[in-house]
């Protein structure tokens, strides 16, 4: 079966979610990956959305982190102060997904501005939950499409720290911390290592044990394609 770059990203991220893992999930690709994991190899994984829904089991993917279906299918719904104080700061979350506009070689992320803070070229949405998720969960998974605009030598603004970033899944491969910085540990099928290096704004190292990502299986793709975003035809 053929598949898209987004699909291999979602499948590869989903494979890294162990059964029973408690995941703090954002919208878009992370929500796709976490829901795929829950519907395939990790049925007992717990999806937590920052709007306060714990154990959501959506039939369709939400457009926002606060769609009604997330609350209707949740084990518990808590307030936002409780979510961040008792559950995130309380150390109850295993894995947190983050995206960003920019990432550096240490996994630090920028989702605040492009350009100068006071006179930004692009005002991005801002940190949201990221600064505390980045340090409050055990493992941070980053999902980000590979390009020199996104993978930069120096961030325009550091929104969250990379100390807990364990894996970066891109449309070309996978980066993991090796010897103090992110190195390429996997390439998706058909991707040349030079292409990944060219799409990275720093001198990206290849891990000694770099390997090819297993292609998405028919079962994985079937489960993935049954997950459609609410409101989409």
């Amino acid at each position, binding site marked *: 079966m053929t598949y898209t770059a987004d699909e291999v990203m979602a499948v590869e991220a989903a494979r890294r979610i162990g059964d029973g893992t408690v995941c703090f999930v954002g919208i878009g690709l992370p929500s796709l990956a976490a829901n795929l994991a829950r519907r395939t190899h990790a049925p007992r994984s717990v999806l937590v959305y920052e709007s306060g829904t714990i154990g959501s089991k959506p039939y369709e993917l939400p457009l926002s982190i*606060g769609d009604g279906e997330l609350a209707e299918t949740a084990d518990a719904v808590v307030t936002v102060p409780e979510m961040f104080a008792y559950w995130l700061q309380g150390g109850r979350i295993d894995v947190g997904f983050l995206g960003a506009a920019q990432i550096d070689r240490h996994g630090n992320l920028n989702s605040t501005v492009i350009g100068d*803070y006071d006179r930004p070229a692009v005002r991005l949405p801002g940190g949201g939950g990221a600064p505390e998720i980045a340090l409050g969960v055990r493992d941070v998974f980053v999902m980000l499409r590979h390009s020199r605009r996104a993978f930069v030598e120096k961030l325009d603004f550091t929104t969250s720290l990379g100390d807990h970033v364990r894996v970066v899944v891109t449309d070309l491969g996978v980066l993991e911390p090796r010897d103090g910085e992110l190195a390429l540990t996997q390439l998706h099928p058909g991707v040349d290592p030079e292409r990944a290096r060219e799409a990275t704004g720093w001198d990206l190292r290849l891990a000694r044990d770099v390997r090819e990502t297993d292609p998405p299986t028919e079962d994985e793709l079937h489960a993935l394609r049954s997950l459609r975003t609410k409101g989409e035809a």
Partner: protein
Amino acid sequence: MAIVPLNDAIRELVRDGDTVALEGFTHLIPHAAGHEIIRQGRRNLTLIRMTPDIVYDQMIGMGCARKLVFSWGGNPGVGSLHRLRDAVENGWPAPLEVEEHSHAGMAAAWAAGASNLPFGVLRGYRGGDLPARTRVARIACPFTGEELAAVPAHRPDAGIVHAQRADRLGNVQLWGILGVQKECVLASARSIVTVEEVVDELTPVPGAIVLPSWVVGAVCVAPRGAHPSYAHGYYDRDNDFYRAWDAISRDRDAFRAWMDEHVLGAVPA
């Protein structure tokens, strides 16, 4: 307080130069109240809200705001808030001062405000560039010496939320994703709650909370008053409108034309 018309409540309780919060975390966003503030031409407001969303994009684009205090300013699942960006990047229609926090910081600031404390405490704002750009201080735990973050409490002049329903005495019942609705009402000097409907009796609903009438400044009936956000049990989030807003709000003239037709022309102020 009795149940009053929304335009009277806004006229009486929201004033030029006020610090105002319209809260609702994706759910129960008080759009009808925001539109009434726009129609009444309030100016120089400091707007507090975790996720500015379309309601603040509209208020900022119509020139109501002087300053924004927030933690995530995007159109969820769609992209940018173009009116917010135009104000920050180009000063249109007026320069907008920004004070940004993390969600955890905003949540702590709301809990502190509701608790009548001067600041909230959290293990947050560690490293990165945000602490130097916002109002946050490092404090030491008096018992262990651990370094923690202190954020100033939110204490708005006026706090506005939407809820599912009220009884005839003005007791308010809401359920589903509760966000910071209760904290917003309790932290504010004056408050307004818009509701979908008034009922004779607030029958129990799983997970529901009640805001007693004596902590609410005004209750106003505003059916579909959260649209394009939603009211759990009444109507769904209008995801198509959130997608459509991207094109409407991208262009200044298209935005003004939409506001003229759908907000300014909708009801007499």
